[in-house]
Structures are given as structure tokens and as C-alpha cells.
């Protein structure tokens, strides 16, 4: 015991944490945006496809969900460039990984959302003469998005926390900034207290904001 807290060095290097937090948010936002596209396309395809396509999509989902994220990050950053002729920065590599990762979770979210759209809405769409494409875009997807909004928010917040894994390939996000200060100033307890507070505050602020959005768009019953 006898550890005296001294936050001076943390504030002196606070730009590492602040810049890191902004980058964490950026990584999460870009990845969920790409993940939503992957999830939507595959979910719509899944519900209308034959057996083989369904099996392939299910294999993608199950594989991603059952492998540690850190291994996927290594695989894409260190493994993939050895077999395909691609060169990318650590940051691009991480965004790619997190997008494919979130895509797998979102396929499941959207698929169950599509199934939850009341049958009567689709029949009503058919009755007023909408084409199948119009029924999808104007009836099925909007209702599905309202139903899945809470699950989307949760996925986003957990992706925000998952961005900490980017530190293992030296992407300078919040956890990386914390480690940098840890190793360079040895104000260990202080830096992790501040980092913890930053993750908590940002995470709960996001949750609160997203709950407000959800209330605005809640599916009519």
C-alpha cells in the first residue's frame, strides 16, 4: 500500500487519451456502418434464399461468433497479407475485421427482425399492389429497423468497447493511449482510473442518447 495518487502526468499526456477516445468512436462508427450493410444484405438474402446460401451465411455467422476477436484481428493483419497480395495499415485492417465481425452479429439481429414483421403488413402491401421490391423497401425494412433498433444500439456500444482490441496491433485508440501513459510515466492506477471513467462515461452517454432515439422511433403497436 502507500500509493499516492498523482494525476499531473495524466493531464500532461491527456491528448493521448482524448485522441484515442475519438479514434475508438471513429472505428466503431465506421465498422458498424459497414457491418449494417453486410448484415442487411445477408439477412434479406437469407430469408429468401435456398438451402446452400442459408448454410453459407449461417457458417459465416457461427464462425465469427465462436472465435475470439483478438484472433480474427491477428488473422486479418498478420495472416491475410501473406496469402493475398494486399497491403493495408493497421487501422484499415482493424476496421475490416470489426466490420466483418459486427456483420455476423447483425445478420442475426436483422434476420429475427425480418421474421418479426407482422404478416398482415406484407399482405396489406400486396393488396394495394406494391411490387415485391416495394414491399421490401417501403414495408418490411422500415418496420424491421424499428424493431431491431434496441439490438442495434447494444451492438454499437459493445463494438465501442471491442475497439480496445485494436491496441494489440498498435492502432492508437483509447486503450493504446492508456498503455502508452502506463509504460512512459508509470502512473498506472491513475491512468486506468481515468481510462475506465472515459469508457464508462462515453458508453453510458451513448446508451442514453440511443435510448432517446429508440423512444422516438419505437415500432407502433
Amino acid at each position, binding site marked *: *500500500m*502507500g*500509493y499516492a495518487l498523482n494525476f499531473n502526468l495524466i493531464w500532461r499526456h491527456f491528448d493521448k487519451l482524448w485522441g484515442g477516445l475519438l479514434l475508438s468512436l471513429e472505428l466503431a462508427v465506421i465498422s458498424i456502418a459497414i457491418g449494417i450493410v453486410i448484415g442487411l444484405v445477408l439477412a434479406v438474402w437469407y430469408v429468401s434464399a435456398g438451402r446452400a446460401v442459408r448454410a453459407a451465411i449461417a457458417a459465416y455467422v*457461427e*464462425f465469427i*461468433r*465462436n*472465435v*475470439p*476477436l*483478438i*484472433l*480474427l484481428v*491477428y*488473422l486479418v493483419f*498478420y*495472416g*491475410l497479407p*501473406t*496469402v493475398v497480395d494486399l497491403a493495408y495499415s493497421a487501422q484499415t485492417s482493424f476496421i475490416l475485421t470489426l466490420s466483418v465481425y459486427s456483420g455476423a452479429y447483425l445478420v442475426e439481429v436483422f434476420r429475427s427482425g425480418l421474421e418479426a414483421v407482422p404478416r398482415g403488413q406484407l399482405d396489406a402491401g400486396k393488396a394495394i399492389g406494391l411490387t415485391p421490391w416495394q414491399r421490401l423497401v417501403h414495408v418490411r425494412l422500415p418496420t424491421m429497423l424499428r424493431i431491431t433498433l434496441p439490438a442495434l444500439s447494444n451492438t454499437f456500444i459493445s463494438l465501442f*468497447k*471491442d*475497439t*480496445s*482490441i485494436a*491496441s*494489440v496491433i498498435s492502432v492508437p485508440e483509447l*486503450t493504446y493511449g*492508456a*498503455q502508452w501513459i*502506463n509504460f512512459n510515466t*508509470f502512473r*498506472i*492506477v491513475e491512468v*486506468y482510473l481515468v*481510462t*475506465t471513467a472515459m*469508457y*464508462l462515461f462515453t*458508453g*453510458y452517454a451513448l446508451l442514453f442518447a440511443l435510448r432517446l432515439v429508440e423512444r422516438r422511433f419505437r415500432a407502433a403497436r
Partner: protein
Amino acid sequence: MLTQIAYALPFLAQGFALTLWVSLLVVVLSLIAGVLLGVGLVYGPAPLRWAVRIFSDTIRGIPILVLMFFVYYGLPAIGLHLPSFWAAVLALTLFKTAQVIEYLRGAVGSIPKGQSEAAMAIGLTFRQRLAYVIFPQAFRRFLPPWINGVTDAVKGSALVSLLGITDLMQAINQVIGRTYEAMPLYILGALIYFAVNYALSLASRRLERRFSFIRE
């Protein structure tokens, strides 16, 4: 390539054994701590409820990696010297305990209030109510998500590689450091993790289906 990987297999198996050992410790310790704290959260006096709520929300609000570094680097700084293996197990257990608390709260919360009241009316003590009335019913709500959540412990255990512990993840990285066969080894590693976790999630789904016919 294949001979090199075959040569590394015993080493990888050792790493895998360590991954399983870490996961098992975390799962057992967090089950005990989580059920105790979960009961505290549901039935405890207000200060205890608040303390458990803050603990759970804090732990679930930060990345496991930050929790792990905090425990690993922070404890020695305040004079507590844990071997890195136990620091890693402690951090993962804290994370998993918060999950178990929430599973338990959800499961117990799903039991209609009348059950508890009826048990009280026939004169059962608090412990008897839990043991004979609440827990047997809450068990089937608790088990499927809990088994599914074991996959989080197995996946989370891959982070101990960052503390220099030679689990499966670290063993794979070390073999790659010697053989430069990155892709085949990462894929092999992914398949091993997949096999363990997929089996767990199948078991969870099967149980859920088996319990689903029971109506409240």
C-alpha cells in the same frame, strides 16, 4: 509446411490445455461469486443492492482488456503481487461474475411473485424458499444463457496471451514467430476455438428448446 505444423502440435496442445484450465477456473469462480452477488442484488438490503449494481454496471461498461491491464499492472503498484496467471484469472473472473449476476437476476426475476408469497404463506424460511421454490424454477431460465456465456470465458481467455501467458493464442503466435506460417496456424487456431465454443452454443440451444415447453 505440414511437417512444421505437425512438429508444433504438442506445443499447441499445451497451450490449448492452458486455455481450457483458465476458462474452467474463471467459469467455476465466477459462478460462485455471481450467484452470491446476484442473490444479494435481488434480495439484499439497499446498500448491498446498490454496491452490486455499481459493480456490475462498471465491469460491464469497460472493455475486458482495460480491466485486465488495470488488474495486472495496477495491483503490483498498490503493493499486491499476484503471479500474472492469477492476475489474468482474477480479471476474467470479475468480468464473468458481472455476467452471471445479470443471468441470475433475469432468471429469478422471471419467477412470478406469487411463488415466493405462497412459499412464505406456508412458513418456509428465506433459505428454504430459495432452495425449494425459487432456484429449481429459475434454473431452467439460468442454464441456457449461462452455458452460452461460457463461450465468452473461452474467447476472453485469449486475452491472457497479452500478459505473456502461453495459452493457445500465445502458443500460435510463438509457432508463427518460428515458422512464418501465419495463415495456416491462425486458421488452425480459429478452428480449435470454434470447435469448443460451437459445441457449447449447440448445448445451450438444445437445452433452451428442451425447457421451452414449460409454461409459467
